């Protein structure tokens, strides 16, 4: 719409300019024709005059009259002849130039002719003839001079034709151009030309304006010299004009000013302009109406849709677009709403998925698609369980407990996340986490142990907060095992779960359960311990897991080597001595070493465990079949 108006205006201007150019071309052509006709007409007038004078110069009645040289006789003959041929002035001159008789000055005789140049020109011409345009008593005449042969050249006959409006009007009848005969004379005071209108077809107010217009046109003399068209502004109207010099002498000009009104030439095009303008208005109205319609039916809905799309891009899926149209855009809006709804649901699912499954799994599910089946992977499984939680439950209501549990699980889960673990599931207050799936992690064992240590560290902080809030302290048992398991999406085709299955999972769970027995916070299998570096472990026991022949050595991680003290290392070394003696069945010696440790660390539960075992073995003979593996019977 914005571009339409300039285009239409441009079109209008182009058409207008083209019309003006055409009109000007037509005028130029017409003026050229007028100029030709003017000169032809002037020549015809001159020739007609010449013919008349020549006829007289051969008239044998006139010869004796002329040769009388009697003023009155000649004058009356001239008047008679002038009337006969419809001339406006006639003179008879003696050969040397003196006037014998002059019809315009009946009393004048025996005086030099007032237009000596005409006679001079005739005398010097081949046929003794000359013509000019000159003033006689301020009236412009077309004049010719011809010698009278009797039979030698004895007189000059001069005949003149007054250049009147009729002359101009006759030209106008043929050419339809305005014709003015102008006389210009140089003013000695200013050096510029003053123009006088002698005859013209111009009527009304503009008739006299050509004088002013020409006089005020500074470049006119130049235009006159090159015979170029120029515009003359008269009474606010532009006239395309051409000036034809008829005679110029002594800085005096007789010119024919041929003119055509530009406005008049444009009249035929006015209708065209009107049609174009009308078309322009109609188009504009249609455009405004149509534009409104388009704005209402297309632009507005599209804008609404675009805004909706922008909101969706920003993540605001909960929107509905209002486009009440029964067209394609209405359908599009409906589809858009459906899409937004779909996206909202998808976003909800994604958000929930992140909560239900770990972010890494959720990502894998969303990106790779969901398919049943799995792969064998080495995984480190962490099981953690909150101790004393049930006793907490007794003192507080369920809602408060659930809130507390969720807070605890959130804090612990965060630590698992940080160590690249994924939450497999929450089982009440217990957490099962996997390390090394679905994304492979070469440091999975190390990361798991560090996560467990960090969780224990976090527990200290949690307990401080609990005490402040009048809660009972809680404990946290963690079991860790690294094993080959099957990892993947398991369940039915409609409901499934990314998890791992295998003995290793059970071992991990079992280790978590055994922490209570040994009175340690974390128990790690040998498989995990072997993959760890720079962590101080305390070997706890070698045990037989149900259904397995081989023993499983379990360890308690104490912390990162750099963070443990000399004292701790010595304690670990001391207990390792006890274990070595125990495995050698040197009960007495083992107990001897253990007793001081118990005295020093009476709270260490597994010291007590071994103390009981050694006391029980006192006096038992060396048995070479004893493998030192302890079998737990209770779960």
């Amino acid at each position, binding site marked *: 719409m914005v571009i339409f108006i300039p285009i239409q205006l441009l079109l209008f201007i182009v058409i207008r300019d083209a019309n003006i150019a055409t009109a000007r071309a037509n005028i130029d052509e017409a003026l050229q024709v007028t100029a030709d006709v003017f000169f032809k007409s002037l020549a015809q007038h001159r*020739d007609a005059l010449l013919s008349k004078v020549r006829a007289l110069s*051969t008239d*044998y009645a006139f*010869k*004796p009259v002329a*040769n009388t040289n009697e003023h009155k006789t000649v004058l009356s003959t001239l008047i008679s002849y002038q009337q006969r041929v419809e001339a406006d002035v006639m003179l008879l001159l003696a050969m040397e130039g003196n006037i014998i008789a002059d019809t315009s000055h009946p009393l004048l005789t025996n005086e030099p002719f007032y237009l000596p140049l005409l006679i001079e020109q005739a005398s010097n*011409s*081949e*046929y*003794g003839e000359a013509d000019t345009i000159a003033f006689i008593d301020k009236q412009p005449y077309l004049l010719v001079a011809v*010698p009278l*042969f*009797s*039979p*030698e*050249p*004895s007189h000059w006959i001069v005949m003149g034709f007054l250049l009147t409006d009729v002359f101009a009007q006759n030209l106008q009848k043929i050419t339809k151009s305005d014709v003015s005969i102008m006389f210009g004379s140089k003013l000695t005071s200013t050096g510029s030309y003053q123009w006088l209108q002698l005859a013209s077809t111009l009527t009304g107010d503009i008739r006299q304006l050509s004088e002013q217009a020409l006089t005020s046109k500074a470049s006119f003399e130049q235009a006159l010299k090159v015979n170029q068209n120029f515009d003359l502004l008269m009474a606010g109207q532009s006239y395309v004009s051409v000036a034809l010099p008829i005679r110029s002498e002594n800085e005096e000009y007789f010119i024919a000013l041929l003119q055509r009104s530009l406005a008049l030439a444009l009249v035929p095009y006015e209708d065209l302009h009107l049609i174009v303008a009308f078309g322009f208005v109609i188009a504009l109205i249609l455009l405004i109406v149509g534009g409104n319609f388009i704005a209402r039916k297309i632009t507005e809905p599209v804008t609404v849709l675009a805004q909706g799309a922008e909101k969706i891009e920003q993540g605001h899926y909960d929107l509905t677009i209002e486009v009440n149209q029964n067209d394609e855009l209405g359908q599009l809006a409906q589809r858009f709403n459906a899409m937004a709804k779909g996206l909202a649901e998808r976003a909800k699912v994604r958000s929930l998925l992140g909560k239900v499954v770990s972010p890494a799994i959720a990502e894998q599910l969303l990106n790779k698609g969901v398919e049943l089946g799995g792969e064998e992977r080495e995984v480190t499984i962490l099981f953690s369980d909150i101790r004393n939680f049930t006793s907490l439950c007794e003192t507080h209501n369920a809602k408060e407990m659930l809130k507390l549990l969720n807070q605890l699980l959130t804090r612990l889960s965060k630590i698992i996340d940080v160590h690249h673990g994924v939450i497999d599931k929450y089982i009440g207050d217990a957490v099962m986490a996997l390390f090394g799936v679905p994304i492979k992690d070469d440091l999975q064992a190390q990361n798991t142990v560090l996560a467990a240590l960090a969780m224990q560290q976090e527990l200290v902080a949690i307990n401080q907060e609990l005490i402040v809030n009048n809660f009972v302290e809680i404990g946290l048992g963690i079991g860790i095992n690294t094993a080959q398991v099957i990892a993947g999406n398991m369940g039915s085709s409609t409901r499934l779960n990314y998890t791992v299955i295998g003995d290793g999972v059970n071992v991990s769970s079992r280790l978590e359960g055994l922490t209570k027995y040994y009175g340690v916070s974390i128990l790690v299998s040998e498989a995990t311990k072997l993959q760890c570096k720079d962590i101080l472990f305390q070997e706890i026991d070698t045990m037989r897991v149900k259904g397995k022949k081989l023993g499983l050595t379990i360890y308690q991680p104490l912390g990162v080597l750099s963070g443990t003290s000399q004292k701790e290392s010595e304690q670990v070394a001391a207990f390792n001595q006890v274990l070595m003696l125990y495995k050698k069945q040197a009960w007495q010696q083992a107990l001897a070493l253990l007793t001081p440790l118990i005295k020093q660390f009476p709270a260490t539960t597994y010291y007590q465990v071994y103390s009981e075992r050694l006391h029980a073995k006192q006096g038992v003979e060396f048995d070479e079949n004893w493998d030192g593996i302890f079998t737990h019977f209770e779960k």
Partner: protein
Amino acid sequence: MKIFQLAAWYFISISFVTSWLSHANSIKVSVVDEKKNPVEFAVIYIKETLPKVSGHSVVIDQVDKEFIPYVTVVQRGSAINFPNNDEIRHQVYSFSKSKQFELPLYSGNPSSPVVFDKNGVIAMACNIHDWMKAYIYVVDTNKFTISDKAGQAVLSNLAKGQYEVVVWHPKAKESEQLNAQQIDIGDGEQKLVFIVAQKTQFKAWRSPKSVRRRGY
């Protein structure tokens, strides 16, 4: 009749003797223009003042709408006849100061000849046929001649003595005094050359040959 015959014989014999005696005394005149082209129709005469004659008669014919001859020189007092040999009528006129006359439309011989008793140039023409033009030159001498196509003319039978020879031509630029030369005539033939500057004349656009074609 006898008297007439006797008189005739007398004149013939006298003129024979005088011509034989003075034949050697003559002037051969050559007339040229500024470009050394020969000038025809130049009147050459000895300037003197003889009394006017009477009874002398000359003819200027009108044949095929032309005056023949174009230039005629006569001694003052001579009469000229203008017989019309065409089938159409002519109207001969002159407005020259030396002789103004008009012979209204006529055919055949005019009833009476025109007597020229005043010196000077008479430009005459036909009022009907603009190109018909002729010149008559009236002089106070009987010693005159007209140059031929070669611009040549001879003045003969001149007695010894000093003469002023004058040349006139219808198109001469200068007045006749300037075209005069003094000459001493002795025995034999003298030669004179006249250069007659021609004045430019308006073209006789009325003659049939030069009429411009101007159709409608």
